[in-house]
């Protein structure tokens, strides 16, 4: 892959096309999970990849291409979320074209509870949560990706986890359901 990145850095558009094909699924998955909207995720991915093409000659380490472009995607998600002022209130339901979840792994109630709680998180907290639980990055790597201190990444993950876990637990408690749906 290094060879392809170096060719793209020298302006080879064909090589860049190969990189786009190789990485776009993984990057789209990240954007879709952070933004919870496949249309916004498409816009973020497109913007990030075009920015990547323009800035590619400045990439210092070709072996870090995917980490670098992942950072661009996350920041494009931030920009996309902030550009849509009413974004949080108008989250569209994702089309059911993703992989089907085995029923035994997550209940419908848990899914709904997580959907609602996730919308209450800031875009920065969502990004940390997705990079940790979906991409599997360690906190130090997340901090590097987001350009924040490790302590900030840790606190965002801590808060997001607390909110989402509380949502699941509240959902499991029968008394709490009335107030939660108000």
């Amino acid at each position, binding site marked *: 892959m290094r060879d392809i990145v170096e060719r793209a850095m020298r*302006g080879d*558009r064909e090589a*860049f*096309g190969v990189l*786009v*094909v190789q990485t*776009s*699924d993984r*990057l*789209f*998955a990240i954007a*879709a*999970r952070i933004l*919870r909207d*496949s249309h916004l995720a*498409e816009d973020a*991915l*497109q913007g990030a*990849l*075009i920015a990547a*093409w*323009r*800035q*590619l*000659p*400045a990439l210092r380490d070709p072996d870090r291409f995917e980490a670098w472009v992942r950072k661009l995607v996350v920041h494009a998600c931030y920009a996309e979320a902030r550009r849509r002022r009413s974004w949080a209130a108008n989250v569209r339901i994702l*089309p059911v*074209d*993703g*992989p089907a*979840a*085995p029923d035994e*792994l*997550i209940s419908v109630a*848990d*899914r709904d509870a*997580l959907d609602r709680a996730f919308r209450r998180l800031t875009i920065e907290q969502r990004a940390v*949560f*997705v990079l940790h*639980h*979906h991409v599997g990055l360690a906190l*130090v790597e997340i*901090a590097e990706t987001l350009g*924040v*201190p*490790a*302590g*900030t990444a*840790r*606190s*965002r993950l*801590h*808060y997001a*986890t607390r909110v*989402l*876990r509380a949502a*699941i*637990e509240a959902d*499991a*408690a029968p008394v709490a359901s009335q107030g939660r749906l108000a």
Partner: protein
Amino acid sequence: MTTTNRDFDRIARAWLDLMPDEAPDRVIDAVVKAAEATPQVRPHFGRVTRRFRDMPRFALVGVSAAVAAVIAGLALLNLRPTANVGTATPTAGASPSTIPTGTWTAPKDGISFYTPSGATSELLAIVSTGNGDHLFVREQGFPVDRTAFLSSITAASDSEVVLRVTSVAPLGGRGFGSGTPVSVDGVAFAGCKLGDLGRYRWVLAADGNSMTLFSLGDACPSREVVLARLWTRNPSTPTPSP
């Protein structure tokens, strides 16, 4: 009902897996077309690198050797222990660390020590004494109080150290000490207990002016959120004593 960490991780992953994983072809097509019509931004040093590419091979080898010699010299200067040479008295089972001594600063970055506001940055002091190497953190502008995380330093390898909390008493009054929880953006982290161990990797920048501490695990979460980040050398501040 309580959800265990493992249960929560499993549920979270399953929930995240519900979302689509494939980028639509129209996005890929749009990016490829945009790239065809968009020029790349070349960094300013492009001309310099082109000049090197055009240089005869023997000249390039000479320049490379000179640059390598300068870098090696600088690295030796930066990595050489300074204040702790000959002064550290290793304790049993401990070896003197090679972590650079001196004072380092970092912005607060949302970190709160639950003390009155005022300080905008924190100072990390790494000092060498007759009892070995130690470090502590102090809020800038408050030279007497608000010192925390007094820890002994033991080398674990060339670039790794083990820190042991040697005092949790409020160092200087006002109630703040290593045992006080630190918060980051409003989220509190547990304070230190005496003897808490933490292992850190330190990476010194080539110019010696900044050092990144990476946590490899710390029993004291508060010390970890404060220490594990980029520190900038503070040559103007004399190394204080704890």
